[in-house]
């Protein structure tokens, strides 16, 4: 069938590139597909998806159909199987889809609306399995771990809570802070679990999977992101008020741990990943 390549590019020097931040989960397929479709209508085609940042290149505005698929999800510590990727790509491109962008989790394909290319997944069970595998290496590991840590932190906070803490500025911080994050995390996990339960039975009955609409995901993400911003603001406020009105060493310690530990962990992980990647590119087990 051949791939669709008649996209007219606009001058990149004149238009530059566009970057957008998005926080989505593996089940937000419809939301992503509509986002990329809308951007193509405005003259921007997604060309790179890295973490939470999407990069778009300028094209002549046109209507394109997108398909966001989860494929062989790999964590930064896994060794990616390029042979499998090539085969998957070969099948998709031969059947009329063109690859726009990919990362360790998603492959984003597009086609012209008039193209008769088959949907990438025609069997609900296969699609369900691909999303399940992506979640197994992502949200379903990190969030339960985070929730456990927060429950522990909350339990410690409640255990050490004294009566006079209720009258002290910031006295309840060790209880309110983990509670707030816990609410955000549980709020993020619930739609994922519900999606898995609902669609597992649908896939078994060979019925098409149901994804949340664009509007629903926007509302959900809006609430989730606002929650994160509020928690962060509360953390900053607590730190600020401590230096202006009172000083509490324990509180300072808790705040610093919550600010420094994730950042430190992120930096360490980044160094580790860089080391592994440089080892792979120079090592003997390069495929």
């Amino acid at each position, binding site marked *: *069938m051949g791939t669709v390549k008649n996209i007219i590019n606009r001058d990149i020097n004149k238009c530059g590139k566009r970057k957008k931040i998005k926080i989505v989960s593996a089940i937000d397929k419809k939301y992503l597909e509509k986002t990329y479709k809308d951007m193509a209508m405005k003259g921007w085609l997604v060309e790179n998806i890295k973490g939470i940042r999407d990069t778009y290149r300028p094209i002549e505005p046109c209507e394109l159909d997108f398909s966001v*698929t989860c*494929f062989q999800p790999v964590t930064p510590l896994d060794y990616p199987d390029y042979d*499998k990727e*090539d*085969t*998957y790509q*070969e*099948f*998709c491109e*031969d*059947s009329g*889809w063109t690859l726009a962008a990919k990362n360790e989790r998603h492959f984003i394909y597009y086609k012209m609306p008039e193209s008769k290319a*088959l*949907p*990438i*997944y*025609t*069997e609900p069970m*296969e*699609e369900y*399995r*691909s999303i399940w595998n992506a979640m197994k290496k992502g949200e379903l590991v990190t969030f339960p771990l985070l929730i456990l840590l927060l429950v522990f932190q909350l339990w410690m906070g409640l255990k050490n809570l004294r009566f006079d803490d209720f009258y002290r500025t910031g006295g309840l911080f060790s209880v309110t802070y983990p509670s707030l994050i816990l609410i955000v995390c549980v709020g993020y996990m619930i739609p994922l679990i519900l999606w898995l339960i609902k669609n597992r039975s649908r896939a078994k009955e060979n019925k098409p999977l149901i994804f949340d609409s664009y509007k629903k995901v926007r509302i959900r993400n809006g609430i989730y992101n606002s929650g994160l911003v509020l928690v962060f603001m509360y953390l900053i406020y607590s730190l600020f008020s401590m230096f202006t009105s009172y000083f509490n060493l324990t509180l300072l310690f808790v705040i610093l741990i919550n600010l420094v530990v994730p950042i430190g962990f992120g930096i360490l992980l980044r160094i580790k990943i860089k080391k592994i990647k440089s080892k792979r590119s120079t090592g003997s087990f390069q495929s």
Partner: protein
Amino acid sequence: MWKEKNMARKQLQNLTEPMYYVLLCLKIPLHGYGIMQKVDQMTGGRVKVGPGTLYHLIARFEAEDIVEQVSSTNNKKSYVMTKKGRDLLNKEFFRLKQLVLDGERILEGKLDGDS
């Protein structure tokens, strides 16, 4: 790994429609897009196998030694059914044939003593 293989084996005991037709196509070596087209032709468009679905089916068949990769020309990989795959397909064919015969006997009144 063991769990995955065991699960795949369990799923392959009875072939789904796409699985059955993909195996039928692989009596002769064929590449991915060829398989999709042939399934469509064979079934008159009734059964369609998308590229993602096909990729996962082939991967599972390869893991179970039901199909194997035979060549890679023009960057296109071709696959063919192995002896194990042929046995599995034959078994499924006779199972389906038996279902049809039983159905005929009951529905068309060919069952002994039914007339």
